[in-house]
């Protein structure tokens, strides 16, 4: 039993954190978020050069040949820095599908940093002669991703994954006004839209399951980063801010609130790392671990943000302070692919009905 990151993983963490602090400090993220397109496309080349895209893809397929635990480190730091770019959609959701495809060209384009991708699920999309019809609702980063990987006949015995070139025709995307402006949703309205087959039934189901688990584990790690940032913000304020002649963090009404953030954060962190490891080795508990980590992570991040807002006093309630950006990301995480209660319902079924 060894629950430590390797020296290489620690270095990856430091490099990721340093890059975001220098290139995309939270003030810059806020500026980007309040404008369109909501991110700095030039940053993508840099994050690809830093190796964030394809860490866990095998070397003979053009990746770095590392593990999902390495990717988890990047997701946590990206959450902590609120990186506004299609990292979650491209790396966690899309790469497992692209990696499973026989055609290596779409994977290669993403690994090379030439294209980004996202995934649309539960769309009720139908196929007719290589053309797709149906609406993929609430697709993360739809307005900025180059490829949409969309599932047809989802939930049947015959699901398939198709690639729609969004970069070639953005007219199918309807950007959604999204509370978290650093990760925006879009609806993709397909109406006889041409698409390329990526995965057919024999490979689609497994790859979709991997994509889904990686998405949950990645969001759990992001949530840990978000919660950690909220804790840091609250702790710094409670140390600096004086009222009645003392730092407010010396009052237990404030300090215990901050301690509570720490407790739920560390519990969520343990689950997030466990889930990331389960995913990386294909452990039989991966599904339960991801459900636990995603639900606890989302709740810890929301809890951290809400308590940080309270500890900050009025300043934490203003648009100018960055805290609300983290709060909104925390709620994005909670709402995507199942609120915590929905994950717990699946866990309860395994515990009580099996």
């Amino acid at each position: 039993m060894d629950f430590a990151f390797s020296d290489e993983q620690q270095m990856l963490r430091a490099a990721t954190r340093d890059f975001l602090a220098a290139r995309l400090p939270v003030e810059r993220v806020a500026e980007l978020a309040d404008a369109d397109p909501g991110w700095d496309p030039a940053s993508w080349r840099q994050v690809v050069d830093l190796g964030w895209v394809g860490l866990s893809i095998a070397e003979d397929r053009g990746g770095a040949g590392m593990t999902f635990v390495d990717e988890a480190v990047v997701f946590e730091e990206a959450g902590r820095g609120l990186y506004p770019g299609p990292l979650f959609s491209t790396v966690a959701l899309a790469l497992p599908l692209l990696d499973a495809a026989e055609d290596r060209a779409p994977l290669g384009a993403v690994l090379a940093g030439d294209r980004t991708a996202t995934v649309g699920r539960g769309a009720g999309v139908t196929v007719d002669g290589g053309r797709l019809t149906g609406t993929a609702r609430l697709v993360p980063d739809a307005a900025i991703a180059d490829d949409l990987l969309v599932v047809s006949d989802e939930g049947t015995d015959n699901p398939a994954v198709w690639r729609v070139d969004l970069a070639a025709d953005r007219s199918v995307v309807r950007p959604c006004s999204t509370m978290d402006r650093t990760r925006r949703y879009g609806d993709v309205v397909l109406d006889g839209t041409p698409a390329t087959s990526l995965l057919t039934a024999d490979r689609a189901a497994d790859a979709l399951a991997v994509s889904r688990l990686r998405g949950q584990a990645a969001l759990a790690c992001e949530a840990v980063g978000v919660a950690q940032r909220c804790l840091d913000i609250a702790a710094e304020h409670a140390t600096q801010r004086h009222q009645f002649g003392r730092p407010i963090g010396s009052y237990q009404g404030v300090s215990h609130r901050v301690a509570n953030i720490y407790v739920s954060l560390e519990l969520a962190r343990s689950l997030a790392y466990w889930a990331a490891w389960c995913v990386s080795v294909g452990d039989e508990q991966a599904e339960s671990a991801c459900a636990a980590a995603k639900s606890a992570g989302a709740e810890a991040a929301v809890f951290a943000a809400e308590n940080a807002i309270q500890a900050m006093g009025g300043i934490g309630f203003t648009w100018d302070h960055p805290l609300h950006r983290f709060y909104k990301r925390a709620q994005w995480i909670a709402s995507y692919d199942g609120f915590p209660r929905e994950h717990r319902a699946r866990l309860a079924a395994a515990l009580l009905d099996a």
Partner: protein
Amino acid sequence: MDFRDSPDEASFRAELRAWLAENLPVGWADRAPEAGRGDEDLSREWSRKLHAAGYAGLTWPKEYGGGGAPYPHQAIFLEETARADAPTHIGVIGLGMAGPTIIVHGTDAQKAQHLERILSGETVFCQGFSEPGAGSDLASVRTRADLDGDHFVVNGQKVWSSYAHIADWCILVTRSEPGSEKHRGLTYLLVDMHSPGVEVRPLRQITGDPEFNEIFFTDVRVPVENVLGEVGGGWGVAMTTLLHERGTLGFALTARLEVLLTKIIALARTPDEAGRRPGDDPVLRDRIAQHWVELQALRFTNYRSLTSLVKTGVPGPEGSVAKLHWSESNQRLTSLALELIGPAAQLDGAEGVWSGFWQYQQLRSRGNTIEAGTSEILRNIIAERVVGLPKSR
């Protein structure tokens, strides 16, 4: 990062499982859980077996009769014995607190006198730290130890002392310099509980069970060779004890929580007379799943802290959440059990489910946020020492 047992850990776990299967009383797994304290005779017998097999004091150095094993073995031991719902060693205070403190601060004579006997269960220790006026504020102890020739004469009262009614020895924090204040002037004594002037009175708790005791010391003569550490240096020695109290405690607590959750799930799956399963109620299902999530979170947080301990010799700071969160989780879990039982939750004793096991657990859990560091003190520690906020006092 690898959550699997190493080959060495796996073989230790397999050996331990086999040993437990062979040595637990026949029919042990199928017995109905009982409310209240464990059976003392059973616990003594079990302690002897553990010691003979080398499982008592696993991480203690071999020269003191311990196993010299790495910390993960102790964690595995706690997990596996809890899963088997095995009895506990009678020397909880000796193994977890007195022994490790004697190993650090004791003289050769003290080590020879106590350590082996703690492991075998021959000597039972109790703890004399808290007083009516010194709870969370341990430094305000007033029990006096006045030097008289080659003896200290002890007068005072201690409280909340588990095992005192059967204990042979007590680790006692006293004030040995009259007029001294706070952390100075304290002396840590090893006191023979069979000495004249020691009186133990049971303290009945809200469970109805006298698990704790008060200890009254009236002119109790303690030889100076029973001072642990330096005269006047008792505070530092006491900190060693408390550090060990919180060391691998997380594993023991989490393992106990796992045992209770397993029982809760069985309860939730059992249909009532009308054929309804309590576990079909969506709200209760959500709460049961939440407890499973919290249990995994505690387990892996313990592992994380343990990894730091193995790699650096110091437990990770995240270990500070274990007891705090366990105590609150345990309170919610045991209250959930009563809800699963339904209106009959009020029936205890022979009329209750499993002879009032859950009623006892639920009431007992209210002590969890008070004993071994109140939740308020633990939050202070996290805020000040881990997060780095300004001190509250």
